């Protein structure tokens, strides 16, 4: 069929009002977003938020209760499931390897299931990519958790997917292995693979993802990590002086780009600013002019973690919430 042309140029994923319910338990509800081709998209959320269920739904394993989606330009309906599955691959939450088979035997089976051309070469390449070339003949039961995870990753790479779903790929990995996975994701991004990454690691999402969505049964927010920070937190400068200022109001009142201030301890001041690049030099000049001894002026840096905790930390746990509906 028109395998090549399908959805050229359109988004890799587009999801409209998608919901999934198990009986009367809501796994996720009214989720809409788009992911561009070649984008690394982070999907964050607390335990039970519906991340895995979303991946399974987009991966055609379970049917949504309502809403629609297009995967690689193909409408997500049961009769398209096989075509969709040919273009994606999923690394599930648990590796699910055949433990009695060797690493190479596991990969061989999946290379055949995807009908990849030149399977030997593909398998060797995938194993090199996850740095497991020397463990090809090991029985999977003898591998550690982290190594099994890497075999699962290699398995997901065999078919050269357009869209790669990674469900918590670095859960349980040591720092070196985690960095290796991060570098791999970077390389895949350069090759133009679209990556849908669910994770609990906020620094991971911040470092790797072009955009992130935060889910807690419903979608709470979506955007570039930097944008989310700016949307949620007023920008601010913290000023620390050696001694308390005699008349801070007088100093901070008429500064350009400063909207207000409040004290932070006896010698600290937090200025709400619209543009730190304008406010910081002006504040410095005013403080020096007033004869104050300035210890530091810095713009307060909010991390994605602050955004996440702000949005999710005050929620009721996703499970209770879903149960109540």
């Amino acid at each position, binding site marked *: 069929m028109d395998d090549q042309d399908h959805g050229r140029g359109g988004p890799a994923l587009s999801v409209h009002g998608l919901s999934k319910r198990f009986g009367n338990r809501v796994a996720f509800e009214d989720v809409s977003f788009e992911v561009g081709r070649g984008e690394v998209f982070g999907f964050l959320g607390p335990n039970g938020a519906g991340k895995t269920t979303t991946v399974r739904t987009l991966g055609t394993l379970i049917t949504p209760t309502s809403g629609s989606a297009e995967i690689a330009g193909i409408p997500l309906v049961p009769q398209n499931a096989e075509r969709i599955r040919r273009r994606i691959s*999923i690394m599930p939450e648990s590796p699910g390897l055949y433990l009695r088979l060797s690493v190479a035997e596991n990969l*061989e089976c999946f290379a055949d299931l995807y009908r990849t051309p030149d399977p030997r070469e593909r398998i060797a390449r995938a194993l090199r990519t996850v740095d497991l070339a020397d463990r090809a003949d090991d029985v999977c039961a003898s591998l550690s958790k982290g190594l099994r995870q890497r075999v699962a990753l290699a398995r997901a790479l065999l078919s050269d997917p357009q869209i790669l779903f990674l469900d918590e790929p670095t859960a349980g990995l040591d720092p070196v292995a985690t960095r290796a996975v991060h570098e791999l994701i970077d390389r895949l991004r350069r090759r133009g693979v679209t990556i849908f990454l669910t994770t609990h690691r906020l620094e991971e999402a911040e470092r790797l993802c072009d955009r992130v969505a935060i889910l807690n049964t419903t979608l709470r927010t979506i955007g570039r990590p930097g944008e989310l920070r700016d949307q949620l937190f007023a920008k601010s400068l913290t000023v620390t002086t050696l001694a308390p200022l005699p008349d801070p109001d007088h100093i901070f009142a008429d500064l350009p780009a400063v909207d207000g201030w409040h004290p932070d301890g006896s010698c600290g001041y937090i200025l709400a600013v619209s543009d730190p690049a304008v406010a910081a030099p002006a504040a410095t000049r005013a403080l020096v002019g007033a004869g104050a001894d300035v210890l530091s002026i810095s713009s307060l840096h909010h991390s994605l973690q602050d955004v996440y905790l702000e949005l999710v930390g005050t929620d009721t746990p996703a499970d209770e919430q879903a149960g109540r509906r």
Partner: protein
Amino acid sequence: MSMSSRRIRAIVRKELREYRRTPSIVVTMAIIPLIFLVQPLVVVLGLTASSAGPLAHEHVLLYLLGIPALVPVLIAAYAVAGERQQGTLEPLLTTPIRREELLLGKALASLLPSAAVAYAVYAVFIACVELFADPAVASALLQWPQILAQVLFTPLIATWSIWAGMGISAKFTDVRVSQQLGLLAGLPTVALTSLIAFDVIHPTPGRALALVAALLLLDGLGWRIVSAVFDRERLITGTR
């Protein structure tokens, strides 16, 4: 869309590798045939020429058809429930494999070793009878129509047992439960072959042909029914 023989072969190869390395399956494949082999062999080897007459009316050889009725049902009962229990079903179902391909691959993988074991047991039985039984008993026992029926019915019965076991396996999560139910499902076939073996149901060429037709029908139907019962979502989430 046509079926991919490469995918079916991939499943067969993977299953056979797993079976070889799964002690419980190897034991199943060894024990049941032994049980079916030893009892008739002990009886037959103890017979004297005088009992050859009544023996001609029994079809002891057909009793061995219990092997293709029971061995594959136990292996097939493991096929889906086992994958589910190991957590390997999800990655498998994310590939482009179609359920008909998956089920056919698994069925072939259960059929090949079961049929091989069954034929091996027949060969051992026949060899023992030829070598060690009284010649009159041997010639009363080993009749060509029976040996032919044996060869012909083995894959037909095994295939039916496989679909029964696989259907149960797709419905029940627990491997043990599904194997026990599988055994139950295999019993009617054993009962039928035993009734024929002991001449309660007298085998005639007509009845044999009818049975072949019925089994072919059941085997084709079994594939359809199991494919219909096989529901990705239910298998993965345990709901629906």
